[in-house]
């Protein structure tokens, strides 16, 4: 077993990015992700990397575009309002088929919102955020260890599919400390002969571009990218099942909400409520098949989220509305207590809860 070190989520994520070979970080200060930038500003100059505090989130994501175009592993991190500003650039990353990592340490919204943890950017991360037909690979860590492993994985998947990846964390995960192993294995190298490194360095002329005034060609580009999304949906789904074998009520929760769910399940089972958890680790691709499978035996689903109900629709779609789906959430930076979840499970069991 490898040695463990005690690290703060944001700093662990930053170190994992460096271990994944990222030497180009571009950011802009915003709470609660600032430790990522601060960590990078200390580390990058010492390892010959680039840390640049941009003039805006917009500039930062475009610097990522520049570095990624030139074949480098590049990243940016921000928090909810900052991700809105980066959305233009994220759409360009997707359109230009550039690999890159974007980290969202979510806080409450909309607007300037608050600075406390939230999961209210689920839609933004999973359903687009920017304009056009595209997906991000969206990874939702639930521990500091996963902040590390998902960052490593995110760079790998981005390079493998030439699709930008996002870490959808939240203020809790960013701020909390846990022991982690930094034994992450080898960094896989991918062909980047498409990169704009100068024609001396490759065959022909490389152009990184998302523009086409020919509708037929643009459609073709989109279809070809969606063919890759289908492969991602087939091969890259990650999830955790917890006590689902005999579960009558299956909670679906990601990130920090999933940890609250686990506590609630322990309490609920003491009261004779057979609850379990499916925790999506990839929000895109969403674990549709595992949920459909659980729907064959569970009686009901509870989508547990730190928002007003965003993932719940995807749960309903995944199970084809075959079983009743309920929702419980807190928002605005408020975390739920396990007792609230247990109460909800009890109400569902007694038929007193209202379906979503």
């Amino acid at each position, binding site marked *: 077993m490898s040695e463990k070190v005690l690290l703060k989520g944001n700093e662990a994520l930053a170190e994992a990015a460096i271990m994944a070979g990222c030497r180009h970080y571009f950011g802009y200060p915003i709470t609660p992700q600032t430790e990522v930038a601060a960590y990078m500003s200390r580390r990058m100059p010492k390892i010959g990397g680039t840390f640049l505090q941009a003039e805006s989130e917009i500039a930062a994501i475009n610097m990522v575009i520049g570095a990624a175009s030139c074949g480098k592993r590049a990243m940016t991190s921000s928090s909810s309002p900052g991700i809105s500003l980066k959305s233009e650039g994220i759409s360009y990353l997707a359109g230009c088929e550039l690999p890159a990592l974007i980290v969202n340490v979510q806080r409450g919204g909309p607007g300037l919102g608050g600075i406390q943890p939230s999961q209210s950017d689920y839609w933004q991360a999973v359903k687009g955020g920017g304009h056009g037909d595209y997906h991000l690979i969206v990874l939702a860590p639930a521990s500091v260890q996963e902040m590390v492993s998902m960052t490593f994985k995110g760079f790998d998947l981005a390079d493998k599919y030439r699709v930008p990846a996002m870490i959808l964390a939240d203020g809790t995960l960013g701020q909390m400390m846990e022991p982690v192993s930094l034994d992450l294995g080898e960094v896989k190298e991918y062909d980047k002969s498409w990169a*704009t490194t*100068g024609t001396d360095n490759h065959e022909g002329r490389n152009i990184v571009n998302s523009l086409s005034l020919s509708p037929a060609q643009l459609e073709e580009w989109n279809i070809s990218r969606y063919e890759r999304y289908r492969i991602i949906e087939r091969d890259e789904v990650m999830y955790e099942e917890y006590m689902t074998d005999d579960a009558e009520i299956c909670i679906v929760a990601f990130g920090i909400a999933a940890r609250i769910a686990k506590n609630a399940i322990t309490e609920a089972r003491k009261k004779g409520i057979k609850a379990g958890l499916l925790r999506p680790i990839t929000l895109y691709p969403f674990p549709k098949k595992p949920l459909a499978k659980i729907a064959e035996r569970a009686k009901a689903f509870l989508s547990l989220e730190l928002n007003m109900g965003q993932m719940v629709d995807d749960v309903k779609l995944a199970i084809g509305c075959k079983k009743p789906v309920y929702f419980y959430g807190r928002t605005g930076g408020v975390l739920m207590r396990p007792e609230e979840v247990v109460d909800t499970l009890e109400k569902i069991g007694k038929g007193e809860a209202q379906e979503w």
Partner: protein
Amino acid sequence: MVVFEKTKGLTDNQFHYCPGCTHGIIHRLVAETLEELGVLGKTVGVASVGCSVFSYNYFKCDMIQAAHGRAPAVATGAKRANPDNVVFTYQGDGDLAAIGTAETVHAAARNENITVIFVNNAIYGMTGGQMAPTTLPGQVTQTSPYGRDVTVVGYPVKVCEMLSQVDGASYLERVAVNNVKNIKNAKKAIMHAFKNQLEGKGFSLIEVLSTCPTNWGLSPEKAIKWLDDNMQTYYPLGVYKDKYKEEK
């Protein structure tokens, strides 16, 4: 005897620019410069949004197509990724002086070691002739049909003058391509800007006064005259900053 040879810095694609538009001349000057410096094979150009959006089809080097106004940020990422590459942006006035103002000012403030070619024709060309940040007072455009009223929409932005106050910027010059003498001088300025980059001297911006006969509603000949009479008066040609020259 060959008296004029096409530069190897341009592809064989036919320009989409309108008759009388001076983008073609400016493309040629940039391409010739890259060829003469022998750096085409290590150049990464950044195309912007506007009439020059398709410049990636014309410059015979690697190209990145940036979002509107973001070219200096994209170029920053590219240059930081591979500092041995020669990185330039090619931007119009709407792109650089309106939506991309922050990216421009801060790339200059960081003295980012890139070359910016800024084509100022006082109008949004690609979208059909709307008022630009550089549209002259009183100038009629599609969105200033009664002439630019400075009491309502404010004054034009003088980019070289503004950036000359930014400590980071290394070299700023405004040139024009409306006659042979000016074209020769524009070439010199563009050459100087790229040499600066090769010597690690940092941010250089060449503002090139350009015509837009189509959207100005003038013949190519009259457009040149309009540039002489109006644009050059408001936007005087010259070197606005040459940090390394001053230090000599």
